[in-house]
């Protein structure tokens, strides 16, 4: 390792906790959210340095991009009255606790075994039999596919719960300010570009960094942009949208259940077919993930409702 590498890693590693600290101590919420987005991008850099390209991609798109957009778009709608400064005693208590945790965890971490390949070798040995040639896709959709099955259920439940708490009135996207000319032409370019990039990422996922989550979040980013700019209204729960929402989980459950009918274990794909099956699963997941992530956004940014409106609960 050269001096340049060390400097780069050192700067990144020092920046991460500093930015994180900046987020939690920022004076205003806007600033905190902005710094949070910056933190996401710096983490993505750190992960690229650690050879975790897939994680960097998802972090930049989902962890930083979509989460940041979620927070920013909700901020005007959340009344500042929810804010109550915590007491000095609480801060001091948490601070002391925190110092303890940090030192303790730091020491523990540094005393972990310095060299360990983890399960890397085992993954490499078995990758030929799995449904994908890219190790991370193989882990996500085959070796630990059951985790991903539950995770897709988590996404769907979150989407349903988000829908359930939204007032019906908030659902149709309100057109905000008129879209400016350059923005409109950018959005025209965005849709085809995202579809191409997403398709590319799904295809790459079978043998290189990329896959359903990366592709789905790119598509979702496109959908969210259209929605937040008021270009498209928020999704209505038509049959087609519901079908897109559940497609990924439905295919996954079917792939998990089919082997059971033949007396095998769940998710035990018939080995010669594993590749095509995993690819089909990736396509279905891409669609569902994109639509689910879009449903996390309730439409154009809104302001608190005027108090005069009547309750809409029946």
């Amino acid at each position, binding site marked *: 390792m050269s001096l340049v590498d060390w400097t780069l890693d050192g700067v990144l590693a020092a920046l991460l906790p500093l930015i994180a600290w900046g987020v939690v101590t920022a004076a205003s919420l806007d600033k905190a959210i902005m710094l949070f987005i910056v933190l996401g991008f710096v983490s993505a850099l750190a992960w690229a340095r650690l050879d975790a390209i897939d994680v960097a991609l998802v972090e930049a798109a989902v962890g930083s991009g979509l989460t940041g957009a979620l927070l920013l778009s909700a901020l005007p709608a959340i009344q500042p009255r929810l804010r109550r400064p915590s007491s000095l005693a609480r801060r001091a208590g948490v601070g002391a606790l925190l110092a303890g945790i940090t030192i*303790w*965890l730091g*020491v*523990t*971490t540094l*005393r*972990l*075994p310095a060299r*360990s*390949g*983890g*399960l890397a070798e*085992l*993954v490499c040995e*078995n990758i030929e039999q799995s449904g994908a040639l890219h190790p991370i896709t193989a882990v996500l959709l*085959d*070796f*630990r*596919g*059951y*985790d991903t*099955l*539950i*995770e897709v*259920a*988590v996404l*769907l*439940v*979150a989407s*349903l*719960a988000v829908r*359930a*708490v939204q*007032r019906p009135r908030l659902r149709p996207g309100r057109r905000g300010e008129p879209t400016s000319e350059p923005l409109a032409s950018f959005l025209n370019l965005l849709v085809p570009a995202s579809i191409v990039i997403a398709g590319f990422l799904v295809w790459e996922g079978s043998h290189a960094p990329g896959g359903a989550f990366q592709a789905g979040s790119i598509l979702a980013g496109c959908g969210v942009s259209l929605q937040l700019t008021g270009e498209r209204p928020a999704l209505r729960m038509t*049959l087609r949208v*519901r*079908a897109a*929402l*559940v497609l990924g*989980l*439905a295919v996954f*459950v079917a792939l*998990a*259940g089919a082997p*059971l009918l033949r*007396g*095998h*274990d*769940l*998710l*035990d*794909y018939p080995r010669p077919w594993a590749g095509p099956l995993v690819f089909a699963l990736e396509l279905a997941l891409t669609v569902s993930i994109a639509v689910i992530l879009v449903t996390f956004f309730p439409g154009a940014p809104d302001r608190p409702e005027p108090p005069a409106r009547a309750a809409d*609960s029946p």
Partner: protein
Amino acid sequence: MSGTTPWISWTILAPLAGATLSVLVARRAVPIAVIASAATIVSVAATVGQVASAGAVSSAAGAWGAPLGITLRADGFGALMLATFGVVGPLVSLQAIGRRGGPRARRFLVLWLFAWASLNALALSADVFNLYVTVELVTLAAVGLIVVERDRRALAAGLRYLLLSLVGSLFYLMGVALLYAATATLDTELLGERVTPEPASWTALALMTAGLCLKAGLCPLHAWVPPAYTSAPPAVSALLSGLIGKAPYVVLVRLWVEVFPGSLGGGAARLLGALGALGIFWGSLLALRARRLKRVLAYSSVAHVGYLFLFFPLGTAGAWAGAAYVAVSHAAASASMFMAVEVVERSVGHDMLDATKGVAHRRPLTFVALGLAGMSLMGLPPSGGFVAKWLLARAALERGEWWWAAVVIAGGLLSAGYVFPILRGAFAPQRRSPELRRAPRHAELVSLSLAVVALALGLIPLRLMALLKLAGRS
């Protein structure tokens, strides 16, 4: 697995498939949910049967097996939890089916199916990271259930529960990261073999335990419990207090019994036991002071979480049986009480303690239910609660640690203090009959059947104990 029918996997896939389908075909959500529930009950019964006859059953997802893949394993404890979820949950969900349609009932059913799938997955998972994912699914489904009616206080309670729960999960996940870094496996059985007493392991244990205690609502961390249990719709409170509240405890038991058996009965375990004892006293005292029925029940749940934690300092098979029995009997009794309170609230219009005055004559089924379930909460023979507390106290005396037994007995006396007023008000003679609104008949029946389950648990303990012994780990 070879030859046997893979029922264990169906206990997760059946409710998941039902939930998926009922999102798609929203109009037919109720019949789909009924069919999926029936299929799940059959799978659960078959799995429990397999465990009872042949011992622990397991299935390796994707046929990979640990350490590369994830294993589902049903041992005695897992089967017992499956059975609990499979008896109490469908009974409670009957009230939504009984309410017949409506978007609220549909949303409830879909979220319940997801919650059920995740609870079963949690009871069966033998992988610490997979446990994290299932716990998150349990949490999100639970929050969805709490906020489903969009009541303002329920929204606030749901948000609080969600945020605290996430913090708990991330402490747990930090522990998982440390364990994996130290041992290169996530499978509980392999972890049990590979974990050595070094800083990383006990730090992981501490982080995971702290996170799970927060999620379980162990005493000093219980502040989120009463708002969530009192502002959610009653059927949801029944599920939360009866089933979902037990989920973090199940993970905790897996962790301590399978990965860190050496820590049972040690200093940290004593601390957990002491916090449990504190929870029993504090929860019961608050329940004594509460004036709303739902608050009484919520604080009673806090106290019962305390009993569950008495297992850790004792660490014997007998104590384990006792704690598992507390979990099962409290699930039935508490769910029954919450459903009965729904009937009272709907009949009288509120749930103050005096709401029960003179209602017994008009709603006899509900008050039989309240009485039977109350017996179990108090631990009077021959209820399930009695067996549970008796097992715990006996385990404590066997180890010569009489003070835990004293805690159990004192907790029982205190619970009598808050259960009796409910019943006394109800059966008090009344000059004129109070005006009652119409109350849902099916809620009464659900409450009564759950109370009967709680009572029956006291009559058939030996069969269940045999199931638990099969696990034979501790």
